[in-house]
């Protein structure tokens, strides 16, 4: 299982603007549910609150009002039912790739042979079985992010939360990792909620795209592409992809939906 429900999430905070304190409404009553095994993309212009929402879902920030449920249980902070993949991988530079993956497992209380085994398995899952002894600065950006994904997956969370996971990578590396994520999802069936500003990425990876504007959900759009999506190249060329991409693009730019 791994169903995430966001219920009326509201986030406000005060920012000092010169002498006056100004109230920022980062999120206003955001509600949607990510079904078990579903992949949902959060997209919207920068400053629309999508990263804040993800951090609230993770428990790294608290909402001013509203609730986050994972499989019906209310979230009060970070937990091992959710794994976070950060924008810049955020590996600990003094640890090797394998030790980085072990870090989360150790926090979870995994010890001894099980620790080794789980970390090695997670690294193998992202295709880095042989790079375990390298330190982050000896890995390319793409490899670093794969270690970041392995670290999150190693604790076997129900839900993977990803904050613009491929945003810092060059286009080709990004496409490679997108294909790998599709494959990873097909194999593990994890629920995935990810933030992106890349329309192609949202449509290619997600079952549904949540379009946010100014702290609210503007639209939730289904992506009518079959799973498993084994051939990203073919999908990118399909008319369904192009049509969905255009619909999402219009929503992101706050244009009315076209009626056929």
């Amino acid at each position, binding site marked *: 299982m791994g169903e995430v429900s966001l219920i009326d999430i509201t986030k406000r905070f005060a920012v000092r603007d010169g002498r006056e304190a100004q109230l920022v409404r980062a999120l206003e009553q955001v509600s949607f549910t990510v079904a078990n095994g579903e992949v949902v993309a959060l997209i919207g212009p920068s400053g629309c609150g999508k990263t804040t929402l993800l951090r609230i879902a*993770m*428990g*790294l920030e608290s909402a001013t009002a509203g609730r986050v449920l994972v499989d019906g249980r209310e979230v009060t*902070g*970070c*937990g*091992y039912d959710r*794994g*976070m993949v*950060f924008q*810049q991988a*955020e590996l*600990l*530079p*003094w640890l090797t790739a394998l030790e980085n993956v072990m*870090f*989360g497992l150790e*926090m*979870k209380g995994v010890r001894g042979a099980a620790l080794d085994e789980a970390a090695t398995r997670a690294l193998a899952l992202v295709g880095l079985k042989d790079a375990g002894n390298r*330190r*982050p*600065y000896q890995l390319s950006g793409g490899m670093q992010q794969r270690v970041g994904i392995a670290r999150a997956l190693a*604790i076997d969370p129900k839900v993977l939360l990803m904050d613009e996971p491929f945003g810092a990578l060059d286009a080709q590396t990004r496409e490679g990792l997108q294909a790998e994520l599709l494959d990873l999802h097909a194999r593990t069936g994890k629920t995935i909620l990810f933030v992106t500003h890349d329309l192609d990425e949202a449509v290619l990876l997600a079952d549904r795209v949540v379009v946010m504007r100014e702290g609210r959900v503007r639209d939730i759009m289904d992506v009518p592409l079959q799973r498993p999506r084994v051939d990203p190249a073919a999908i990118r060329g399909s008319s369904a992809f192009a049509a969905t991409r255009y619909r999402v693009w219009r929503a992101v730019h706050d244009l009315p939906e076209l009626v056929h």
Partner: protein
Amino acid sequence: MTDSAERRTHLPQASDRLDDLALARRAGMPHWAVTTISLVVMLAAWEFFGRDINPVFGSYPSAIAVAFWELTTSGLLGRALLQSLQPFAAGFALAIAVGVPLGLVIGRFRAVEAAIGIYVTAGYAMPLVALVPLLMLWLGLGFAVKAAVVMLMSVFPICINTWVGVGAVPKSLIDVGKSFVASDRTILRRIVLPATLPYIMAGIRLAVGRAVVAMIIAEFFTAISGLGAIIINSANNFDTARMFVPVVVLMVLATLLTALIGAIERRVAPWQAEIAGRDRD
């Protein structure tokens, strides 16, 4: 920058050999060679001009070397060094053992920073020499007071640097710890401490110089002993060359210690050199 980039990418030409030579020349002499030459020139100039000065008012390298030889063969220098190094090592170790954890806690927790940060900042500027008589009342004239003076003098730079270092730890790395439900203690030990290591090492390096000064101050003002005693006794006898021996020994000692700390730093924080590589002329 741009012209060396071009050099790397342009097509092979007849002038390449010249370019290679120019590059090799630009790479210049190794670091140690420049330092050695600098030392030789400085010592030669000192020797040259120093000989003209009345030996009470100044000295010069060869006279100091002779005095060094006498002090070494008589065993006096060795005994004094050993006598000095014991409180130095104890006080310095204590400064690290107190300064690092204190800096970590002050840097990590706002309430602690508000409560005791001010004492650390003020303590750094404390005129320690003025307090030595008081310390003598508390701790006597022997080993304890000397170690205490060394500790008090070196704990603040270590603590302040650690404190500043904690502030420079990326928030996102703390988030990594939190996302795996790590406790405050675990985050401090497993994330903040290693991330702060380069700052801690820099603080220890700054503290070496202050600790050496503190050691001599302690030897002057409490029971006269160690290298400080040689300095005082020689000065009282107007034997300036002899007085310079411990001074030079201490400077060499501090330089070696600093180099040692640099080497340790590269061992315990090798990632730092990779991330923050120095590229200078």
